[in-house]
């Protein structure tokens, strides 16, 4: 029984995150449509998309592709995001935590982009090869500021790497926390492959880039991975920066508010910016966001050692 309970929690929270992610996908598309004065898709749109790809369409494997790597990459990406979802929800609900689970989360969140590169390289298409090289550069861009930004809540939680420990502090209500949160939101934008940083996908220049050769069920896996990431990234940010969730009526309402606020910010950034070139993205992340994250870390260390709360 004691073994089955955490497994059940993981499965239930992964499935729940999947549904939340599909709902957020719809929210994202509907909001985009309303911002452009369009009517937008009906509420069941992501479900219809996934069912169509899973049940109706045939799965094509290009003759130049390496079948195994091509097909297994989306599965690994989806399962790693599912594990992150289970980990975060079990911290939020049961406060179960292990030493260094933040590092596990950072690693697991790195797997979907890596699997995108693997699948794209295995597909044997020149468009996908360009997309894979761009995705690689993009990982180099955003991973450094992302980790630096996550260091700030670690310092606020008295150098603890446990998410269950970090959830008891709210670094957002300090100067360093606000800077780190902004940096983390931009890094999450690139991790999600949303528009100013959808360089690897670039529909109008390299025709979908990394996913150009996927069809049918593997494409549905990629769709689901994206949807789950859209649900998991705000969840991670709320957990480490913004105090997680309290299971009271007001607490749950506040949690939903925070969640929708973060997703809305993501969508607004996506709708008000054109796609950047890879060199512009690199300059933005390394020359602007990384120094900002370093300053946030320094402020947090000063605040911690001198016991100044608002730093």
């Amino acid at each position, binding site marked *: 029984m004691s073994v089955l309970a955490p497994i059940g929690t993981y499965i239930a929270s992964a499935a729940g995150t999947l549904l939340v992610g599909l709902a957020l996908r719809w929210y994202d598309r509907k909001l985009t*449509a309303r911002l452009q004065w369009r009517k937008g898709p*009906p509420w069941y*749109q992501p479900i*219809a*998309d996934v*069912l*169509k790809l899973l049940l109706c369409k045939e799965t094509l494997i290009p003759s130049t592709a390496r079948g195994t790597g091509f097909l297994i990459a989306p599965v690994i990406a989806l399962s790693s995001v599912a594990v992150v979802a289970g980990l975060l929800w079990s911290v939020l609900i049961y406060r179960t935590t292990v030493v260094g689970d933040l590092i596990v989360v950072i690693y697991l969140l790195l797997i979907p982009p890596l699997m995108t590169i693997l699948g794209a390289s295995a597909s044997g298409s020149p468009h996908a090869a360009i997309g894979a090289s761009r995705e690689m550069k993009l990982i180099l861009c955003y991973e450094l500021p992302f980790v630096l930004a996550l260091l700030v809540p670690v310092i606020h939680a008295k150098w603890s790497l446990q998410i269950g420990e970090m959830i008891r502090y709210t670094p957002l209500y300090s100067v360093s926390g606000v800077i780190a949160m902004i940096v983390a939101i931009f890094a999450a934008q690139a991790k999600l492959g949303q528009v100013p940083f959808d360089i690897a996908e670039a529909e*109008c220049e390299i025709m*979908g880039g990394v996913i150009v050769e996927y069809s*049918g069920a593997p494409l549905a896996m990629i769709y689901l991975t994206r949807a789950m990431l859209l649900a998991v990234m705000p969840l991670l940010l709320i957990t480490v920066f913004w105090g997680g969730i309290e299971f009271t009526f007001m607490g749950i309402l506040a949690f939903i508010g925070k969640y929708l606020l973060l997703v809305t910010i993501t969508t607004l950034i996506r709708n008000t910016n054109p796609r950047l070139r890879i060199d512009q993205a690199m300059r933005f992340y390394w020359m602007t966001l990384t120094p900002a994250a370093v300053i946030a870390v320094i402020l947090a260390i000063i605040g911690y050692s001198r016991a100044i709360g608002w730093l």
Partner: protein
Amino acid sequence: MALKNWALRKSLWVYHVNTGACNNCDIEVVELLTPRYDIERFGMILVGSPRHADVLAVTGSCTRQSQPRLQEIYRQTAKPCVVLAIGSCAGAQGIFAESYHMGAGVDNAIRAIDPNAIILYVPGCPPKPEAMISAAVKAMELLKEVKI
């Protein structure tokens, strides 16, 4: 079975193929994405790759040069898929029908490799966006009965 047909019908992704059109039909296709017509109401979006597509929106008169490319794109598309022949040129080669550089025509080129292909014709030069939306809705009606 009904679920499959429902999902396919409600989520048609469009890939746009130009087989030598004068660009007028293409402008009208892009018009479908604007606030006035907004094809996303029906769950239709433009995608960048034929592998993702359910609908091939073909414009142009299918010249000799572009005919093998059109057939290759049709082979690359994941089945089941629908072909929309948009404009007079795509329907019956328009005023270029007896020209020296014409291929077999969009419908004949596709029927040559798949006799059971679903092809819908949208006549007009260029057809109105309303006509294309009507064709899309007819395609959805058609997909209710298609066996998957």
